[in-house]
């Protein structure tokens, strides 16, 4: 047994050594360059990436090796920070979260020469620009919508979903008191993601922006937390707790709020597009009773926090031109259309005009409007302190919603903390 495993080990070593030799040969051969793409780890994208990489190889003769990264965003960031700070040439193309430009921008090359910025939504391009360079190319996006119960709107004589927060409050109050009187004690007017975490940063940024209250930290570094608009927005949100939304919303993340809506206990919900596919499947109790719209607004209009993923080329890559070519290919209209068929939101307005896609994914017609109102989280203005700033911010908002601190005191304190953090 032991001899067997020794032989096996020896064999493995021989193969490994032979493998190394082979690899050296290919990279010495200018005809066949291999670039490494640290890509998605989830099922459908894994398959689509592989398909596109094969096509790319057929077209250009450049081979793409897909390395699967961690599926957890925090772990993926930690891995990137490790090999980028070691200036490793082992990975050429990186898959990056929308909140990373400030964290990784220094290590990425400018993609402005291979990406036509005018073909994408301006918010995404603005988010991905770091110190004047386009460091990330938009891959696919995510932006929240307002889910509403069509049957209840009809029942209470509303023709359209709410366009403003005031309308939402009025409709939610009426529907909720009616449904509760009818015996549904758990019924809520509006559910959102109020648990203390990144989810709350996303929700709160929308409230603040739609009240014309700024974006937490502007790209130039100005802190916008204790603004008039923000104070109005959070005073409003505080009022929701105990009226149209239960105290329980302070513990909800995306899934908890979805389950409330799923079980028919909510008239309105703010959530991401992934909910659509799940709740439209025939075994959902509300599959034929809901639709989506853009989020309500106030004097700052409607605002939707931008989420999603991008592609970047490492500065330490040995094949920068080839890697850039691959990034351009993967973010092209054709590639974005292919992914759109599976519900991954394109960030090229042109793809939304495609009728075949519109038929397959009906909520896309809303998404164009959503992206036009998209607001980026302050990853550029906060640089490498994004995580800390976000934590200070959602802590403050959570303490307001829970009634632990008055609006103004909490925001003033958070603004001080953020300023101190960014000064370091």
């Amino acid at each position: 047994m032991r001899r067997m495993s020794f032989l096996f080990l020896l064999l493995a070593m021989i193969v490994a050594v032979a493998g190394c030799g082979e690899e050296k040969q290919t990279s010495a051969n200018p005809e066949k360059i291999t670039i490494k793409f640290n890509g998605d780890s989830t099922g459908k994208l894994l398959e689509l990436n592989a398909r596109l990489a094969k096509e790319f190889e057929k077209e250009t003769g450049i081979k793409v090796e897909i390395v699967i990264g961690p599926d957890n965003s925090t772990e993926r960031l930690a891995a990137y920070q490790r090999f980028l700070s070691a200036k490793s040439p082992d990975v050429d193309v990186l898959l990056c979260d929308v909140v990373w430009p400030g964290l990784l921008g220094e290590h990425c090359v400018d993609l402005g020469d291979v990406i036509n910025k005018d073909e994408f939504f301006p918010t995404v391009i603005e988010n991905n620009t770091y110190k004047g360079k386009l460091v990330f190319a938009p891959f696919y996006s995510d932006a929240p919508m307002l889910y509403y119960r069509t049957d209840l709107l009809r029942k209470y004589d509303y023709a359209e979903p709410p366009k403003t927060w005031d309308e939402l409050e009025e409709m939610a109050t009426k529907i909720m008191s009616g449904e509760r009187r009818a015996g549904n004690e758990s019924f809520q007017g509006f559910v959102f993601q109020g648990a203390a975490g990144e989810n709350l940063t996303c929700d709160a940024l929308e409230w603040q922006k739609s009240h014309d209250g700024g974006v937490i930290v502007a790209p130039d570094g100005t802190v916008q937390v204790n603004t008039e608009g923000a104070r109005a927005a959070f005073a409003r949100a505080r009022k929701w707790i105990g009226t149209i939304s239960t105290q329980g919303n302070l513990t909800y993340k995306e899934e908890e709020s979805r389950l409330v809506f799923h079980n028919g206990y909510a008239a309105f919900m703010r959530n991401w597009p992934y909910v659509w596919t799940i709740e439209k499947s025939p075994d959902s109790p509300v599959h034929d009773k809901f639709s989506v719209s853009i989020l309500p607004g106030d004097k700052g209009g409607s605002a939707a926090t931008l989420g999603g993923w991008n592609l970047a080329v490492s500065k330490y890559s040995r094949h920068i031109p080839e890697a850039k070519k691959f990034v351009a290919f993967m973010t092209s209209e054709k590639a974005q259309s292919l992914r759109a068929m599976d519900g991954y939101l394109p960030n090229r307005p042109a793809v939304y005009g495609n009728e075949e896609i519109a038929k397959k994914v009906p909520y896309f017609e809303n998404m164009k409007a959503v992206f036009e109102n998209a607001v980026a989280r302050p990853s550029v203005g906060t640089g490498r302190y994004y995580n800390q700033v976000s934590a200070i911010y959602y802590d403050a908002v959570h303490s307001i919603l829970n009634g632990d601190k008055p609006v103004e005191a909490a925001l003033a304190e958070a603004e001080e903390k953020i300023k101190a953090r960014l000064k370091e």
Partner: protein
Amino acid sequence: MTSAAGASSAIDRAQGRLAWMFLCPALVILSLVGIYPLLNTLYMSFTDSEAGQVSSTLVGFRNYSAIVRDGDFLKSILNTLVFGISSVTLELIIGMVAALVINVPFRGRAILRAAVLIPWAIPTVVSARMWEWMLNDSFGVINDIAVRKLHVIAEPIAWTGTNSFAMASVIAVDVWKTFPFFALMLLAGLQGIPAELYESARVDGATGWQQFRRITLPLLKPAITVAVVFRSLDALRVFDVVWVLTRGKFGTESVGVYAYRQLFEYINAGTGSAVCIALFLMVFLFVIVYTTLMREPERS
């Protein structure tokens, strides 16, 4: 005499050397996985180190003075004590009752013994997530029973999301999960008590309560001590159940959660390490106090 003593001390020395040789691997492993990280954390607690930063400088006791001045840290110590004392006390009482019940022979005892262990066998994160959903104000089964079936409360309560109930919920979930540990430890202790003691007590006319007070409790003391020490150490370092149920909000932030947030949300390795060292000292102090307290009465 002298030569014999000399010979035996030579043997002692040889055996001592042998003992050290056998202990060496354990000591090496212990220092690698226990002492090195501890010393490294101690060092970091005196620096301004941050994640993703290559170099750091020594800042003396700045991190310690910062956390001591932070009201949230002091609150987290208080929360941890409230959590630790109430959960361990309840677990001891319920565990004791459970142990006494499953120690009595009856039909189906084996099944009951196995059933009691189930909560303990589920990983905390999984059971805490399960309870989080059961306690949900909207679709949770607890509110469903209390509001719609029993009508004991008028409106659903967000058990893990209000300042008045969150800590009680965290303690309840911890008690549910951990009382089997006490039951198991005490059951082992109970089975070590000779049946003759109870027989002679009965002959002398002792009541059930007297038997419990005079025989069971004193003889169980070593088992109780070990169980309470182990559980208290765990309770003082509590993180998982709090993090999953409340993320440390609604007045439930324990020192463990506070340390995690400093380390991984605010990415302050320096301050976070200082909190960890403070927690280590708290736990260490507890162990010393507890072991001395438990030793004293034995002598008298």
